[in-house]
């Protein structure tokens, strides 16, 4: 397994897409943080020294997860797009092992993304609180859980991306499907004011993930009471990752590469 992991890591880091997506994740997260920063400092805002500002700011670090999802998708679909999958399966005819190596690589790359965003974005949040004269009360806003959950979310999202990519294979279709899911389908479930719809929504991957890093006072346009408990959400996500991997390995193992 180690040789395949080395190969997959080298594949990921020898084209440009990884740092483009990492910069995109940082830029998007930075934009959202900047928005929170200005809103908090406005006339009727809570003020940047308040606990409320911390509760709003820390969960913003998870905004880059969409790009983690996309890099996971690309880790599989570029192989079909550029037909390098032929070379990959000639070297390793047991296709299930290739998918396994891609999933582990995805987890590592995703956690790497999460750590980078958490360190850079987290420093910015801390600096903004301290410079406003606020205190960095980590316990009050559950910062360790929020940041830990954020990093885990990046890892899980990248793995789910690999599953989606292996199932769909077409690069454009897979990326578009993921973006529609994240920006339309899940938010739709969140905004419908119906308890059943919101309960179903709370089990969806992106919203289950949100429960890992959300704070009780953060406003998602979705009553935070509807979030799954953290441990239930974590189990649900493991379930999604397992399902995606099984489906991916099963279909990949059987398909003809004509």
């Amino acid at each position: 397994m180690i040789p395949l992991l080395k190969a997959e890591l080298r594949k990921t880091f020898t084209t440009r897409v990884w740092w483009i997506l990492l910069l995109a994740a940082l830029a998007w997260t930075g934009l959202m943080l900047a928005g929170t920063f200005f809103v908090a400092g406005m006339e009727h805002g809570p003020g940047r020294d308040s606990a409320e500002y911390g509760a709003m700011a820390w969960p913003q670090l998870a905004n880059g997860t969409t790009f983690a999802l996309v890099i996971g998708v690309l880790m599989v679909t570029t192989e079909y797009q550029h037909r390098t999958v032929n070379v990959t399966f000639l070297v390793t005819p047991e296709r299930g092992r290739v998918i396994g190596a891609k999933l582990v690589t995805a987890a590592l790359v995703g956690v790497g993304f999460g750590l980078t965003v958490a360190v850079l974005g987290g420093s910015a949040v801390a600096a903004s609180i301290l410079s406003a004269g606020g205190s960095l009360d980590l316990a009050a806003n559950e910062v360790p859980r929020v940041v830990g959950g954020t990093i885990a979310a990046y890892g899980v999202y990248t793995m789910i991306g690999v599953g989606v990519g292996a199932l769909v294979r077409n690069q454009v279709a897979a990326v578009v499907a993921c973006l529609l899911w994240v920006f339309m389908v899940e938010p739709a479930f969140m905004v419908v004011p119906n308890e059943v719809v919101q309960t179903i929504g709370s089990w969806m991957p992106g919203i289950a993930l949100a429960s890992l890093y959300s704070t009780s006072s953060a406003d998602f346009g979705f009553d935070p009471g509807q979030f799954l408990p953290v441990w239930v959400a974590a189990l649900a996500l493991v379930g999604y990752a397992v399902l995606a991997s099984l489906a991916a390995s099963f279909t990949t193992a059987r398909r003809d590469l004509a």
Partner: protein
Amino acid sequence: MSMSPAKVSCMAAIEIREIRKSFRKKKAVDGVSFTVDPGTITGFLGPNGAGKTTTLRCLLGLVRPDSGEGLVNGRAYTDIPDPLTEVGAVLEATNLHPGRRGRDHLRVVCDAAGIPVSRADEVLEEVGLTEAGRKRVGGYSMGMRQRLSLGAALLGEPKVLILDEPANGLDPEGIDWLRRFLRYQAHERGVAVLVSSHVLAEVEQTVDNVVIIAGGRSVQQSALAELTREGESLHEAFLRLTSTGSMPMTFGKAGADQ
């Protein structure tokens, strides 16, 4: 990888047994059988769409045949533990990521196959890409892509080479190089070489044996010398064996009148 000489002499390096494969009820290969011995170059010939590529993909475990099997040194490709040290195969020279450097492509393959990455530089020199290896594949000519793909097949120093249309896109110098390369591999290193082509002039200069298929069926397996013994050129023999009669024989008005 080591094999007793006695075993080599009694077993073909490549054996195709009655392979049949249909895609959506259309027969692509309909009972192809042939063998390739160590130390020989076999030209695998047939018109476009005759089933050459599908046969090779079945042999290499990328496509699952409906019936029949392909064996390399007596076993299925997918049963070989480290296939790259036994078989080098190139299906299309376009199976490369344009954003990855040539040298990195080879290193990825080394990683996955458990071969030391230093082999990448040795092979780059062997195929004359030492300088170009530092550049991204997107800037390569078709001939350079062919040589890079061939390089990947050489990383494990295999005793069986399977090449699908390796002369495509090569300039005259490249074709001359390929010819000498194949002869060296087969006649000096004792490699079994199977090379598909539809460019007969190229094949005639290089191969020891020919396998001709048409419409998914084998129509000829023999030494090249045997096929052309009666003064018939390979070109004439090929047309006699594979012609479908669907191409017009005359042009212009004369054709219309008849």
